[in-house]
């Protein structure tokens, strides 16, 4: 494992600790239920699970305000849930129902909720980076100080659009948080097969963008790193590039025999599961008790089932509506 900056844990109060735990467990159970529903053919198409990377989404969202824009990838359930998109509307979207957050038109990879400024999952690797730069450009031209946070994997960093966007963001001095979730595999390609330089944060330096890296398996470390990043952006108006080193416990997507990695490696990373990483710290410091954890699990169980029921009762759009949303009027 590379050396990372070590963060001392500021004392965290009970309420905030439980909230973080709740969000990560919600994401975990929601994703597990999605996997189950996929095997039962309720969800079709592609399904990319966020299990293992919960700390990044939850940690990052803590310092992003309601005015900040979020752009994500196809592995976006965690980001959407952490951003507060209703779980029922996400599940209904994966069922392809009209009640889905994108009216069933987008599916798992294209969740949109403009009220939450959640500007989608983008399925073209790196495709949303220029959009983020553009949105930040528009904010700047309208004297708005919000941040546009753009999540992407280390795979996207091999796309021209990453380099063009980093350069444009630095050149035009716009408020973009480039947040890379480095989970070591671009689908089936390990990091060392897609990047000449493995210290990914070094790529930001080339464009004069403030860059840092953080342990993406610890929600508190991620929270602090993103706090620093957003503070920098809000004060300087300049972009920031943060690499979160994390790991996905499940396959790239549902139909993947994971021939590209060893079970041994997966188990090693599971030792650093972000959920017990947090709950143990809180238990050890006696901030919470096991009962609290069980209560969170129970609450999450109901939330997830409510989401499934909402999706089950949803309706399919009539065929006559097929060509809606192609043009505005």
């Amino acid at each position, binding site marked *: 494992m590379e050396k990372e900056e070590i963060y001392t844990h500021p004392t965290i109060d009970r309420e905030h600790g439980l909230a973080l735990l709740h969000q990560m467990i919600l994401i975990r159970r929601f994703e*597990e239920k999605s*996997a*189950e*529903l*996929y*095997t*039962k*053919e*309720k969800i*079709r*198409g592609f399904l990319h699970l966020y299990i293992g990377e919960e700390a990044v989404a939850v940690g990052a969202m803590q310092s992003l305000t309601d005015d900040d824009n979020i752009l994500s990838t196809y592995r976006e359930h965690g980001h959407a849930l952490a951003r507060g998109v209703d779980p029922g509307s996400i599940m209904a979207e994966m069922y392809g129902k009209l009640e889905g957050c994108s009216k069933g038109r987008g599916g798992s990879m294209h969740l949109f909720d403009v009220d939450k400024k959640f500007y989608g999952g983008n399925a073209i690797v790196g495709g949303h980076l220029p959009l983020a730069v553009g949105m930040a450009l528009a904010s700047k031209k309208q004297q708005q100080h919000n941040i546009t946070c753009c999540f992407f994997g280390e795979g996207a960093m091999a796309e021209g659009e990453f380099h063009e966007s980093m350069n444009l963001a630095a050149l035009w001095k716009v408020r973009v948080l480039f947040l890379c979730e480095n989970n070591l595999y671009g689908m089936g390609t390990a990091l060392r097969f897609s990047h000449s330089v493995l210290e990914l944060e070094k790529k930001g330096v080339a464009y004069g963008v403030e860059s840092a890296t953080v342990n993406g398996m610890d929600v508190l470390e991620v929270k602090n790193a993103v706090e620093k990043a957003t503070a920098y952006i809000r004060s300087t108006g300049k972009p920031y590039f943060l690499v979160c080193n994390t790991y996905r416990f499940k396959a790239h997507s*549902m*139909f*993947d*025999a994971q*021939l590209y990695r060893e079970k041994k490696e997966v188990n090693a990373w599971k030792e650093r599961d972000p959920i017990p990483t947090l709950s143990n710290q809180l238990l050890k410091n006696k901030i919470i008790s096991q009962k609290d954890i069980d209560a969170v699990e129970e609450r999450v169980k109901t939330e997830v*089932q409510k989401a*499934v*029921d909402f999706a*089950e009762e949803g309706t*399919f759009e*009539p*065929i*006559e509506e*097929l060509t809606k949303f192609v043009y505005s009027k």
Partner: protein
Amino acid sequence: MVEFRMPSLGADMEDGTLVEWRVKSGDTVKRGDIIADVDTQKGLIEIEVFDEGTIDQLVIKEGEKVPVGTVMATITPAGEKISSKKETIPIKKETVITEKAKADAKKEPIKQPLKEGSTESHDRIKISPLAKKIAEEKGIDFSTIKGSGVEGIIVKKDIDLAVNMKVESHVEVTGSKKEIATQGVRAAIASAMSRSNREIPHFYLETRIDMSNALDWLKETNKARELKDRLLSVVLFIKAMAKAINEVPEVNAYWENGLKLKDVINIGFAVSLREGGVVIPAIPNAEQKSPSELMTFLKDLIPRARALKLRSSELSESTITLTSVGEGNVDKVFGVIYPPQVAILGFGNIVEEAWAENEAINARPVVHVTLAADHRAIDGYLGGRFLTALKNNLQNPAEL
């Protein structure tokens, strides 16, 4: 009892082969445990179980390939005897969108309801959609019509002509096909003549032509030829007329807010029908045909004309018309121009008449030729030059 089924891991996964059970009956399992290894087209995949409880029965054996959804094992749920109903998910697939609805959405509604083919089956006739529509509307059987379009396809013009040939005044059409046809001819003549009268300001010129040289040449030529190849004087008229047109092209034109010369010489040859009426098929490129070629051409044309078996193109291509009085002892005829042509040449019979020349009078075979012309297009001077050219051409028949 809860059923554990072969899971679907991808839209393109139809079946899976059980490679190895990780549990045996009686084992307890909890959510997320690996229950079996299944081989797929993507490789070996660990299969999780989502229900908690004890394995009751392993239904399929290792090595068996089964489609997605097949029951692989049964599990007695953990905890209370019957786990809350809500927990289990109904397996049945949503009956979603009927195939028909999907198909309808794809097909753009075709504006024109496809008309039921109303004409009986005949071998593939090439006719333009527009022409076919008009033919069907006007009740025209287009199977006999020869098309004038590219590659002989029947076009609107052909149908319009056929429509004119049909009885225009909607007279109750009875009698044999022949009668119908002749009534059609009558109608066509009526409409052409009235239009001509309405639109064309006629003026007339006349001349007398000495046919001695022409007839002598004809006699000599026919003597040397087989009986069936004998020439008639009419081919000399046609040839002389065609040559005269080359000298005075203005007569071979049409009027459309301005004189528009035709670049081909198709002489409309008036053929009178025994039962009355006249049809005027065209002799295309008359100037290029020799007298004997003209004779062979007429031998085919005239009988067909008389039997009303003409192609509509033959009836519409003429650029100028030649008419004659036919038998009997009328000596000249003044024609009525067929629009949109601008001239019509009329030949009387060849009769012996007194002919004064160099202060001497003697009898000569003479033909009275008249020219009716459209005064919008040409005038007396040009008409006169045309008739003079005709007269000269007939004086040296050998060059025709």
